């Protein structure tokens, strides 16, 4: 891989390479659902560690809630990567959300604080009622 490409990389500005920018990103809770289905298969260390990790850091456990969160966030003009960072970290305030996903405020998208706040509220509601 090219050294230049690596230097450019910065997730805060959504510079993660075209291939990954277009790829489907997975929240930890989604990965958990996928890996659990494969649990009986041949195990190796990368799989084991990933499964342990996503189980520990899944904000939503219930498959319905996982689907609802993706649906909700999909309505907010977010890049896949941004959507998954929000779904993984579940920031509580607008300020925190912007610190976690700085790109949310750039590129002239219509994300005023009010819209972000509503999004965070809806996320915590899903969590509350899962």
């Amino acid at each position, binding site marked *: 891989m090219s050294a230049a490409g690596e230097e450019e990389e910065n*997730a805060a*500005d959504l510079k993660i390479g075209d291939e990954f920018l277009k790829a489907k990103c997975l929240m930890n809770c989604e*990965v958990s659902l996928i890996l659990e289905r494969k649990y009986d298969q041949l195990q190796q260390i*990368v799989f084991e560690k990933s499964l342990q990790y996503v189980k520990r850091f899944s904000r939503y456990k219930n498959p319905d809630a996982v689907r609802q969160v993706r649906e909700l966030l999909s309505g907010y003009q977010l890049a896949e990567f941004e959507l998954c*960072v929000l779904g*993984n970290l579940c920031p509580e305030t607008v300020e925190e959300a912007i610190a*976690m996903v700085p790109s949310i405020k750039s590129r002239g998208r219509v994300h005023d604080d009010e819209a972000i706040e509503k999004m965070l509220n809806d996320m915590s509601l899903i969590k509350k009622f899962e």
Partner: protein
Amino acid sequence: MFFHIVLERNMQLHPRHFGRDLREKLVSKLMKDVEGTCSGRHGFVVAITGIENVGKGLIRDGTGFVTFPVKYQCVVFRPFKGEILEAVVTMVNKMGFFAEAGPVQIFVSNHVSFRLLKFHLLLIPDDMEFQSGDMPNYTTSDGSVKIQKDSEVRLKIIGTRVDATEIFCIGTIKDDFLGVISDPGTTS
């Protein structure tokens, strides 16, 4: 971050496997070859979740082996510079601490000169001091925040180093909304 992506690989198969279960053989070989591997470009391949397409085989001159291009879907874990994620602390020493996020190791340095990686920064907040002992840790002067083995931290990746079989990251907890999420022992 985890991704669901489609990758392609040329699989070589010995003629003895040609038969009704050729596809099955191909898939199980693919899993054995690919799952658990790591490349700088795509990160760690965690699990293959499906086969998109098996292309036409091509006989290799002089061997009888046949090469099949196989397109498969898989879950990969690829850390990015600038990414913020949660991780579990695995080891603490006076140089800093190691944390793990799935298959990747992240080092958060407390050392002034980390020459190899050209960092001259303290990536652990200044008010946190190293305490040695049975359970080495970093603690704030008022004792309110403690980082030790098994603590959960939220950190930002500020550098990655790739070698043939591993990706290694450097992280920081010195920024807004980063740091300890939970101490081991307290409620999760």
